[in-house]
């Protein structure tokens, strides 16, 4: 399931319920990204996530579909917030269930890596000095490139 929404979500409630409907689930891997209190040493006042409504959901659904072709997954949950959020609040949650742990781990990491480079979100940081758009990281491209299936 893909959810793109503005209000903070309840990490414990989401992860406590995830994957519990299927007795064949042996493994749940999850990731939660939080707003850090400092960026490059300066205290962060807030983080605002802009996104491209419509394309966001479309890209996230495509990323989930791709993960399901690569690993035998049971449930997939992606929650990504947009709008303004404060330090300590969750930004994104990805959870994956499978019969076995390796599939769950790999798919969870794949979903995060692809989401970071394909889902149309942009971070705007707000500090005492003002606001600044966050630059894309080369390390995120590298992480996503690990999952490329090159033709032989």
């Amino acid at each position, binding site marked *: 399931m893909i959810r793109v929404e503005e209000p903070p979500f309840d990490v414990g409630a989401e992860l406590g319920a995830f994957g519990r409907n299927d007795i064949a689930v042996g493994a749940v891997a999850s990731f939660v*990204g939080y707003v850090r209190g400092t960026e490059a040493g300066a205290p962060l006042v807030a983080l605002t*996530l*802009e*996104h*491209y409504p*419509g*394309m966001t959901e*479309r*890209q996230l659904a495509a990323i989930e579909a791709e993960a399901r072709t690569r690993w035998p997954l049971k449930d997939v949950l992606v929650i*990504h917030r947009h709008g303004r959020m404060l330090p300590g609040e969750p*930004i*994104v949650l990805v959870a994956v269930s499978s019969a076995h742990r390796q599939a769950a781990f790999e798919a969870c990491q794949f979903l*995060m890596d692809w*989401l*970071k*480079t*394909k*889902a*149309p*979100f*942009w*971070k*705007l940081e707000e500090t005492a000095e003002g606001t600044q*758009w*966050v*630059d*894309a*990281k080369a390390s995120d491209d590298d992480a996503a490139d690990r999952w490329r299936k090159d033709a032989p």
Partner: protein
Amino acid sequence: MKLRYFAWLRTRIGRGEEMLDPPAEVATVAALVAWLATLGPGYAAALAEPKLVRVAVNQDYVGPDHPVRRGDEIALFPPVTGG
């Protein structure tokens, strides 16, 4: 066609979306970006480094040679930084 701008492309251009009617010879993404850069100083600043500009046509990522057509929704934005 409908143009949409996000993040610092939006703030430099000064608007989030607009309807534009480029000349007929503007038939590809690359040509569209080049034409947009001539529309004013905000556009020129936003598009000064074309390699930092990502383009989606009808909500799918495309490359510079992709055709653009009347009726398309074309979005320009910087590399994404979500997650």
